[in-house]
């Protein structure tokens, strides 16, 4: 298990008012993403616990693109990763941001 943490300055704050959202599952090749709206609007912290070691540079690149492309300001994001590929990580992060924008069902 490897633990990584990134503190980013996203260009756009997350929209909506929902306090938290969760997407995905912890399984081989998949990941669980918990998003909590509890930070200043210009900060995004991403904590990662991953089963696959040695991919820090890839995580960094994925996360940089994420905070550039998606409104992620104010979010504390915790990731439980089961060795998902980067495309899956990007998708789950985007799904999480979309979900936290929505009204509670």
């Amino acid at each position, binding site marked *: 298990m490897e633990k990584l943490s990134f503190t980013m300055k996203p260009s756009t704050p997350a929209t909506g008012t929902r306090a938290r959202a969760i997407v995905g599952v912890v399984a081989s090749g998949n990941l669980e993403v918990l998003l909590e709206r509890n930070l200043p609007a210009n900060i995004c912290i991403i904590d990662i616990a991953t089963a696959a070691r040695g991919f820090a540079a890839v995580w960094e690149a994925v996360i940089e693109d994420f905070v550039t492309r998606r409104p992620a300001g104010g979010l504390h994001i915790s990731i439980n990763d089961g*060795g998902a*590929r980067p*495309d899956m990580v*990007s998708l789950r992060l985007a799904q999480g941001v979309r979900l936290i924008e929505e009204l509670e069902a």
Partner: protein
Amino acid sequence: MRNWSTQKEALALRRYAGQRYACGKSVALDDLPQFLEAVLRPGDRVCLEGDNQKQADILAKALANLDPGKIHDLHMVQSGVVLPEHLDVFEKGVAKRLDFSYSGPQSTRIARMLSGGKIELGAVHTYLELFARYFIDLTPQVALIAAVSADRDGNLYTGPNTEDTPTVVEATSFKSGMVVAQVAEIVDKVPRVDIPGDLVHFVVDAKKPFYVEPLFTRDPGAITETQILTAMLAIKGLYAPYGVRRLNHGIGFNTAAIELLLPTYGEKLGLKGKICTHFALNPHPTLIPAIEAGWVEQIHSFGSEVGMDDYLSARSDIFFTGPDGSLRSNRAYCQVAGLYACDMFIGSTLQIDLQGHSSTVTTNRIAGFGGAPNMGSDSRGRRHPSEPWLKAGADADPNAAAGLRRGRKLVVQIGETFGEKNVPLFVEQLDALELADKLDLDLAPVMIYGDDVSHIITEDGIANLLLCRDNDEREQAIRGVAGYTDVGRARDRKMVERLRARGVIRRPEDLGIDPLDADRRMLAARSIKDLMLASGGLYQPPSQFRNW
């Protein structure tokens, strides 16, 4: 004076020797080992029929059990090295030299045996290329083939899986070689004559059907959202603008996703009748929903697919069927169809380098090519125009005079930037080169050469290599869709943005596609059971794909 009939005389001697173990043309299963020892000679060139689908498995087993003291140094010329027995013959010393096309399930062992010197490799071919050599310099002296049934005269019914048989028999029998067939039963009258009896010398009643691998069955339940995204990119960013109606799909989940998106996403885009109407294709179960929704006009097949036979018989307007009602497949004809009459090949691969060369060979695995290098190559012999072919030709050479400009086949590699176990699809150098070095091969086993590839599709976007004007542009276009792989992260960002502005690279957002819309609910069938239901119960999935 020279004797001009030595081959016919040798055949007569083989037939005479074999006749001792036969009643008419029929050889009993128990007598098969002695029979084979009687008709084979050391050093013979032998085609043991087997490709990526059907296998002459009983004959393979018997051949592998021969005494290498009597029969040795055989030169095997066969499409597929698929069964363990196909390599056992080399392990035991019955065979020495090998020319083949495909080795899917044996890819690891064949790599080990090649480097261990157990096999003397001729070459790894594409199917059509090996068939061609059957008629020029690799003509079999003995062909061991597989059929469904035979009559007393040796007329053979090959059923829906005719595949390579007519080609193998044509090359062997008309050049004075011996043809031995294994069949599941001997009948008074075969349902249809696929191989005329006078070309077949002996028939072995194996008392059970030959083995067939369900190679083209993809479970929709295993299709990922990323694969759906690549399929959306393909349909909207390639099939639609080029108007691709005549094509071949390779095996793989990305193309299965395309097939399952036609009746949903394709319908929404108004593309029915405008794309995907004619195929050179094995009967993919995942195409059933599109066929049922009226998308497809005609399909010619290399082989059949396990469980699809009743469905194919019931859809004779779409598939080629015989007077008996069952599918007639033919690998050689279908490969020719794919080469000359299709405007697009789209398939997956394991490695793509910076020039766009692609290979399914890695240092420990030699999977062979099957049909991909043929389907996935631009035929320079083609002369008939079509909209996609002309448009691709204009992409590649906009300044040439239209009347003298060759068209181009669309040769598309599709996949996710990372494969199984996070192994990157994009590499600086193909493993095939290292392997060629290790085995001292003249040629690296490249599946599709970069100059034949027109487009690469990943979740990162579409790279149109036809629009690249030099090697630098080509390399950056490839890096530009290589995602977070090392190759992708080493891209020249400014140049990639310039390529994007020119439409050489098109991102999902450039095509109006939101990756978040890539949802499994878009698939026209989400399980094998859905496919069965879509077929009205005509598709009977093999047991390993049933979980209900």
